[in-house]
């Protein structure tokens, strides 16, 4: 069998690192957008600062993706 490249050693760590790094991009952007929208809203209308509790609900919805990636760290072998 001919290989283009061969990885030897602790490949599991590389896989986990790639998964964590790539998987956290989306939730990171998502939470950033939520924060961006919130700060914009507060900047335009300071009264809207009272919606911080609601922002946490949406953050929790986006956070699910990040948690899935994090949990996979302990599941994949």
């Amino acid at each position, binding site marked *: 069998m001919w290989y283009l490249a061969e990885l030897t050693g602790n490949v599991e760590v590389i896989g986990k690192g790639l998964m964590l790094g790539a998987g956290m991009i989306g939730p990171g952007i998502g939470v950033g957008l939520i924060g961006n929208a919130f700060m914009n809203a507060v900047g335009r209308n300071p009264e809207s600062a009272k919606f911080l509790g609601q922002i946490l609900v949406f953050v*929790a919805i986006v956070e699910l993706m990040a*948690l899935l990636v*994090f949990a996979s760290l302990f599941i994949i072998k």
Partner: protein
Amino acid sequence: MNWLIAATETGPPVHITPSPLFEIGSWQITNSVLYGWIVGLILIVALVSAAFRSRVHPKSGFVQIVEAGTEFIVDLLKNSLGSRAKAIKYAPYFAAIFFFIALSNLLGLLPVIGESFTVGGNPAFRPFTADLNGTLAASLVSLALVQYFAIRESGPVRHLRHYFAGNLKNPLTYVAGIYELFGEIVRLFSLALRLFLNIAIGEIIISVFAYLGKFAAPITALPFLGLEVGVAVLQAYIFVMLTVTYLSLAIKHSDNSDHEFEDTLVHTMHSQKVAK
């Protein structure tokens, strides 16, 4: 750097799945089920005694906490379903699941939960919500009840028309309907996974930071313990919030279902703030 190498050698105790403790007949009892029974028992005793001790001017602090929580859920339902009569009709289940999830999450942060008590090498207690079986059961019961309430409210045919909305001679209606039915399964798993992952990963993070801290474990784990107290109540709120939103969508009769979910969610949360 010795402590880093040591961390990779043994590692902190990390559990994703519950561990079996003993068997009753052919039923395997895991540590999370045992914990769930205990929390259920505590909840029944606490809520029944609070119901008996409830007065117009409550004296004890505990009854006030229960009343505030119940009032919070009734408010949430009222804003979502429209009237207070409907809210009180549906409040018993939602208040119960809110208190159960919150209590299960909060008691899971006690020191006795986890590695301190072990039976045959496995932890004797594990938070019920840190077990995917538990949260899947909770969301399954919740969504089954939502379906039941919706059918009782509007009848089976009108409820089905909720999914297969539009002209029945158009084949696209059926495609969209099957897509909507598939969305129910997505809801089920997203509800279950959100609760499970938040609590299970909270446990893991606390255990990792207590492990890395070595002798300073109380200091390094404390911020995350505080974070988890917030997450515990927030996740119970989010679980009830989303279930109520699904219920209000299912019993509301509207032809266009486009962006209905987001609209109802935002409307519910907005009017809740206004009511306060």
